[in-house]
């Protein structure tokens, strides 16, 4: 990617964000059924109450005006009230989001830690049993339904072996004051290594469920770009200089092989964000995804809408960051 391409992305960013917000708005507006009726379905509400709710949600005003109000509110973080929690939506999200980010980041870390050495090793020993095994495994990884993989892990590590706990992020007796919301950090900040380990043991299975299938695809991408890079003259030249093998592979080759992998990493982040909703449900992980799924059944639409918008905005921004990272890794793009 050339520098103008980065610039183009920068110009595109607001356009895509605008489009995303419009789609989220239309999701709730254009779908069949009156949201007020659905929301009040279980409650015995009078016509006046329905009309009040309708006016409260602004449903009696023209579409364009409603969108502008929605957009203005979204920018200021006002997503209305989560009547299920009887608190502003933004508060509920702020409380749950750190758990989801912690899970996703640790899953990403697992994916990278597994995929990079595997991809490099497979590329170095092309067509070996390791290489063949990896390509079979990565096909397996993309064919694996995440929720089922999680259940298998629960069966093995929690039910059969009793090694790891399932449900929640940390036991009550290990609670620490929440500073960042990331329990791995908060437990350390509180000076409680025991609590850190217990938080980690809760995090391990969900993060592996989310990260391992992602590693499968990533390893394949790293493998194929490494194969290409290893054939390059500069790798031969680096070896001819007498550099240690590790430096040739992990600095000279990998640095160039990671450039195409970054783009795939951004796409994988979308898989991780979407997959986290499933994994949170399977493991009872109190993150944003779980509260979204709960909210769907409670017909708590403002929260669902805000969360979908948030996931999309995070994803778009991550993709943009990947473009910047691509540029940073590739000196030809730097100005």
């Amino acid at each position, binding site marked *: 990617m050339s520098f103008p391409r980065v610039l183009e992305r920068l110009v595109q960013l607001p356009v895509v964000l605008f489009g995303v917000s419009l789609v989220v708005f239309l999701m709730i507006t254009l779908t069949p059924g009156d949201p007020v009726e659905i929301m009040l379905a279980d409650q015995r509400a009078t016509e006046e109450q329905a009309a009040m709710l309708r006016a409260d949600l602004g449903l009696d005003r023209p579409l364009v005006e409603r969108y502008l109000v929605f957009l203005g509110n979204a920018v200021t973080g006002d997503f209305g009230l989560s009547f299920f929690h009887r608190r502003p939506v933004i508060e509920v999200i702020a409380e749950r989001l750190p758990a989801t980010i912690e899970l996703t980041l640790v899953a990403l870390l697992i994916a990278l830690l597994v995929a990079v050495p595997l991809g490099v090793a497979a590329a170095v020993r092309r067509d070996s049993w390791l290489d063949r095994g990896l390509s079979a495994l990565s096909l397996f990884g993309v064919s694996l*339904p995440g929720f089922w993989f999680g*259940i298998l892990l629960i069966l093995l590590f929690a039910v059969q072996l009793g090694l790891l706990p399932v449900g929640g992020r940390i036991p009550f007796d290990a609670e620490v004051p929440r500073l960042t919301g990331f329990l791995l950090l908060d437990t350390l900040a509180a000076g409680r290594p025991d609590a850190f380990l217990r938080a980690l043991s809760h995090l391990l299975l969900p993060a592996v469920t989310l990260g391992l299938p992602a590693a499968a695809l990533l390893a394949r991408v790293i493998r194929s770009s490494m194969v290409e890079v290893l054939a390059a003259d500069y790798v031969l030249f680096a070896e001819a200089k007498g550099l240690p093998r590790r430096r040739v592979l992990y600095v000279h080759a990998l640095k160039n092989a990671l450039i195409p992998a970054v783009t795939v990493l951004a796409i994988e982040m979308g898989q991780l964000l979407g997959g986290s909703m*499933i994994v949170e449900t399977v493991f009872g992980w109190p993150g944003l995804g779980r509260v979204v799924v709960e909210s769907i059944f409670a017909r708590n639409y403002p929260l669902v809408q805000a969360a979908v918008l948030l996931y999309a905005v995070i994803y778009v921004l991550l993709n943009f960051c990947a473009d910047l990272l691509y540029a940073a890794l590739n000196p030809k793009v730097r100005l």
Partner: protein
Amino acid sequence: MSAVAAPLPALSPTGLALRRLLRNGTAVASGAVVLGVALLAVLAPWIAPQDPTDADLFRRLCAPAWHGETVEPGFWLGCDSLGRDILSRLIHGARVSLSVAALVVGIAAVIGTLAGLAAGYLRGWTDILVSRLVDTLLGFPYLVFAIGLMAMMGPGLHNIVLALVLKEWIFTCRVVRGETLAAREQDYVEAARALGCSPRHIMLREILPNVLSPVLVVATFRMAYVIIMEASLSFLGLGVQPPTPSWGSMVSDGRDFLVDAWWVSTLPGLCILALVLSINLASQGLRDAFDPRLHQSS
């Protein structure tokens, strides 16, 4: 014997691709698995040993035939928490998986192909509009988009298809748009333009036949993904509604009984894995056969 060697039949590119495909043992075997599952799905009402919705609490969580104890004769893979036959539910569940996948991929392929042709050939505002729409939809993680739509529309087979198609078409569209942009510069298109053919004629008669094989390749490997998506939505309870069996919701049903009856949750997941893996293998073979360039560079 001095017989003149029979001239080799001249094969079209498609013929050559098919020959390559048939020589690929893995692809043929996995294709056979997919066809087998499809056959099961079609014939489900006649093949399934039991009524998949027939509940009987006396059979609750009875074990598969190989287990030895608390086995109910005729219920080979055991029963779920309502005493329904798991084997029959698996066979019927294939119908949901495959019909959703086929419908979604089929409709998305048609929409995506038409949008891609129009964007790539007409350029201008059409292209800007289509490309912006594609970029916007790419901005949503797939599952988040589907869950968001299902939340608003409510569960059900039709809504699943709608929700997935709305996201799925962009993958075909991107491929077709790229191919069309390249085809636009080719001689045969320029010749057709010089002859005064209408844009519609050029898009549908000249370019379309040439983009069909990439569309086919995209469609097969997207199908694997769509099956996982449907299963995920059903697992969350946003898919087809009970008592209709679907693999995803069956996994979910068994979650509370992992300790006592592991098979209730694991068997349907195994079916998803087997089907998706077969489709992926078959589509890989298809890709290798129809796109030798990819084959060589791998």
